[in-house]
């Protein structure tokens, strides 16, 4: 529903997303309005990575916020969700 009261249907079209960590890559055709978290979990499983030690972002924006979708990340075809290892230091 918009501010003017009109119903707006969610964008259910698909977008081609690549998830990348170091040089490991997987591409998915994924609905724009679905949370990307499922992709990230799947990517980590396929690549045998510990999901809790990897942080993902897309175009400089956090891709891990609850409910984040390709639509909310304003992703276009061939955009990349980049993973990097959780960093800490002393």
């Amino acid at each position, binding site marked *: 529903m918009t501010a003017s009261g009109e119903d707006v249907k969610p964008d259910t079209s698909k977008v081609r997303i690549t998830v*990348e960590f*170091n*040089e490991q890559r997987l591409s998915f055709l994924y609905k724009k309005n679905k949370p990307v978290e499922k992709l990230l979990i799947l990517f980590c499983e396929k690549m045998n990575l510990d999901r809790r030690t990897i*942080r993902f*972002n*897309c*175009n*400089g*924006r*956090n891709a*891990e*916020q*609850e409910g*984040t979708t390709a639509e909310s990340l304003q992703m276009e075809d*061939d*955009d*990349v969700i*980049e993973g*990097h*290892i*959780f*960093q*800490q*230091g*002393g």
Partner: protein
Amino acid sequence: MQALATFPPDLSVTDLLAVKLPGITEKLSNNFRKTKGWFSTDLPNCDPLTSLWSLKSTPSISLLRELEHDFPQEWLNGAKSVLHPFNNSLRLPLFALGFFRKIHDLREGQEKWSESVEWARDEVPEADLGIFDTISWNTVHSGALDGQLDWTRLVADEWLSGGIIDEMMVDIQSRVAAIPLHAEITVAPLAFQRAIIALSINKNPSKYTLRLLDGYKKLVEAGKPRLYFPLHINNNHWIAFVIDFARKVFGYGDSLGRKKSGSAFTPHLRKWLDAAFPDVKFQNLGGALLSHANQKDYVHCGIYTGKVIQMRKRLTG
């Protein structure tokens, strides 16, 4: 308890600390010491929420990790439920494993926030503890790398994470931008280091990586010749790095006083510099370039890194 059914990350710190969570199961019958004993091919036969929240304890984190590891195979073998650890006749739904994991997360959140509240109470007597009623315990913001729980590192004498370092850099950059005297300075977040490495090791760097580095090149060309940024090295240490495009030098300041700390990063940096500024020959002045204080422990390098960049220490090389 029902309010916690979805484990809301925006629960306030005060509310989180008030929740009574199940403990950790220390004594389990033989049947439950091996992961195989936890799974059943029976269908779940109890109300999940009531049964799960009424548990007095949950498996230890090490046992839970084993259960999570074995789950896919057990599921393929026909597992449909998890045995109730304290009632042989009850079968919990398989998402009980996710519930156990969330309980561990909440428990960790309680421990860390509890330390932070204690610290604020003891060390900052004038602090308004009411703030803990209003801040959420682990909301993840779109601009940050990690959830709010990460902030407890600041008062718990823990290593600083990339999320906190990034927040520091964003804050310093906003202050720098407001001072005309510092018009020649740019402070970059961790994305800069990542982009430099991604450009160096990836045959096809992402559009974002190329756009980001191009943006910093344009800033230099637009009259901002000094670029400061944090560098994460050896997977355990933060140092402050600077490129001075006017003097054609780069180097760093390491609060542990080491002189070769940035050596793994500089070949990656050179690739970008050679490609983006082909007519300039940059000199690596290593750890001699940025003056800095030395840390007296093995915890606070992140604070020193932020401070060196915040003070924009004069280049000593």
